[in-house]
């Protein structure tokens, strides 16, 4: 049974939206939206698991017509290192209310995408 399956590929564990995220002494202070509806500006928080070495992660936002309206790029890690998980977060502003889509590229490979709504 040397060929047993073993998950060693990076994967998206969670992506969530907040009103505000702050790094306070290494701890993330998160403020939720009062009615859980996403409003602009917002913060996104992304948890990627099973990462190794250094790399680049890009989160892109597309509007209803499929046009890219925002792109956030993160560099992470060091060669030869293993990371059980890494948290990425940033703010996004200037988006009007409507339906949007985000994509997550890890080292230029798409690994995840989904739709979400921004309300007034």
């Amino acid at each position: 049974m040397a060929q047993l399956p073993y998950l060693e590929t990076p994967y998206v564990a969670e992506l969530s939206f907040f009103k505000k995220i702050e790094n306070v002494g290494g701890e993330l202070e998160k403020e939720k939206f009062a009615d859980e509806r996403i409003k602009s500006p917002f913060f996104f928080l992304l948890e990627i698991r099973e990462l190794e070495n250094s790399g680049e992660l890009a989160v892109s936002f597309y509007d209803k017509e499929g046009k890219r309206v925002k792109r956030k790029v993160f560099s992470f890690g060091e060669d030869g290192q293993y990371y059980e998980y890494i948290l990425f977060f940033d703010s996004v502003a200037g988006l009007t209310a409507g339906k949007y889509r985000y994509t997550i590229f890890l080292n230029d490979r798409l690994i995840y995408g989904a739709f979400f709504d921004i309300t007034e």
Partner: protein
Amino acid sequence: MGNFIRLLCLSLLIAALPNVLQAAASIHCKGDYFLYSDEKSYIYGAGNITLKSADVLIKGDVLYLDVNSLRGVVYGAVSVKKGKEKKTCQALFFTAFPIKLLYETFSDKVIKEGSKELNDILKKYAPKELKNLELYFEFREFRIDKYKKIKAKTIIPYIVGLPTVPIKSFTIKRGNTPEKTMVYFKNLNVFGLEGLAVTFLLRLRGKFIKGDFDVKLYEKKLLGIDDGSKRGILFSGSSDLLAKKKSFLNFSTLLNTGDKSYNLSFNHRRDFKHFNYSLSQTVSGREKMPAFFQFVSNFTVKKILFLGPTFSFTHNLKQSYSYGVSTPVYLLKKVGLNMSWSRKIIKENYNSDTEDFSTSMNFNTSIAAFSTNYNFSKNMLDAAIRQNFSANVRLSTLNFLDKNVTIDLSTFYMFSAIPSGRESINRTSPGVNGVMASKGALLPFGFTLAPSFSFNHIWDSSEENFTDFNYQLALEKKMGKFKASLAYALASRYRSKNFYVEGSNTQNLNVNLELINPARYSFYLRFYWNNELALENISLSGKVNLPAGFVFSTLALYYKDGSRLQTLELFLEKKIMHNAKLQGGYSLALKRFFVKVVSF
């Protein structure tokens, strides 16, 4: 070790189930890693994914597949070979049967090609969500057909998060159950009402029979559930005996070897153009208890003029029986009017013979809802008569100040005549209820004030009157993660009889302090003042999230009277399943350390 052996046996049991479905058109998938959750019916795959179906070959990096809808997506450097056509993209959305594809590439714009109706509406579960369930499988290869049957290779089944025996090849999902006589594994449940339970379905399909029965083997003692029966087999379900492909007799059954109980029911029903009838026989019992038999029959005429009468007869196979007739009255469209008459004769431990006549009426208007009931009951043994009448009018809710203040008013009238010896005691009770409530007003410095008031008054036979007042006042202030609130409640009860009035007031006061950061901690501190507005008790509960999914919890209850600490519990807990957690700590109430698994 004992638990491991049980799980090992269970794994072998599951593995030994026969594979009876032959695949129709199917998709064959290979990859470095696949994860299937039985509860979510969902597959996640990662690393060198290939999907092959008839003339389509798909390669990519990540797979999300919803088995219920047979819809999925492959992400990464995706290549598709369909016949002689080759394409590449970054996201490939697909439906499996028939196979439809939507190719997407992302740069400054999203470029779509193929079946546009396959938009990205797929729910995507992360591996950690799928692993947080009672039963899941990890494997390297699988085949899925249009009946959603999944046969996998090189598998490790996980039960309650524990790896069991690796299996070379196994049907991890049976898919749609075929219409033929068979027995198959249905599901595994841990931490349910029956503890650890494995359920098989017995399906009967034949020219003269059609039925499904669950055979559930359960083990309670192993999981510490102590309700009398330690383990057993629960056999339940129903079946129809057929004539000309139609059911002429239905029988349902519930047998439990754990508490040695049974319930069998036989039902026959026919429906004709102008009438229908039904016959039913029930037999039930439990060890050391006498068996209970009941025969029930109904005959309904669908409509005669403005009536739709139902005649019924019930017999318990001893000497007790009842018969009667009931009917709706279709005189006015908006008025619900029902009338019934019945006679019930009991000859068991005691004798009784009663005749009942009842009628009810209700109708709604835009300003109020009206309802009335009248019941006349005659004891045929001593000719005693009992009567009840009630009428109720509920006004529609009155709203003021943009629905911030609401008022509900209702009034009722009740009359009862109850036999007492040779006399009859008559009692009338008209009354009125009122409730006024407010969502609250914003005060200076961010305080919110929410008062509510209710009253009800009953004139009891015009001799004795009851009046209740209830008053509540809540004051609240929020400051970031901190919330303070004060709640005062006052209840006044008055009873007047002839020339004197009795009355009493009860009140209490609560002060609540809350400090909550949902991601890290939550603390609740409550002070309670009793009727004399003297401090009676203080309670505290708190939780702090620790690394690795552990949570530190504390509960304390202090009584000022006697200066005693009633409860103090300190414990660590960790969620081990989506519906179970492991707790360990010290309880002052039990005066001992404890470790336990609790379901929620």
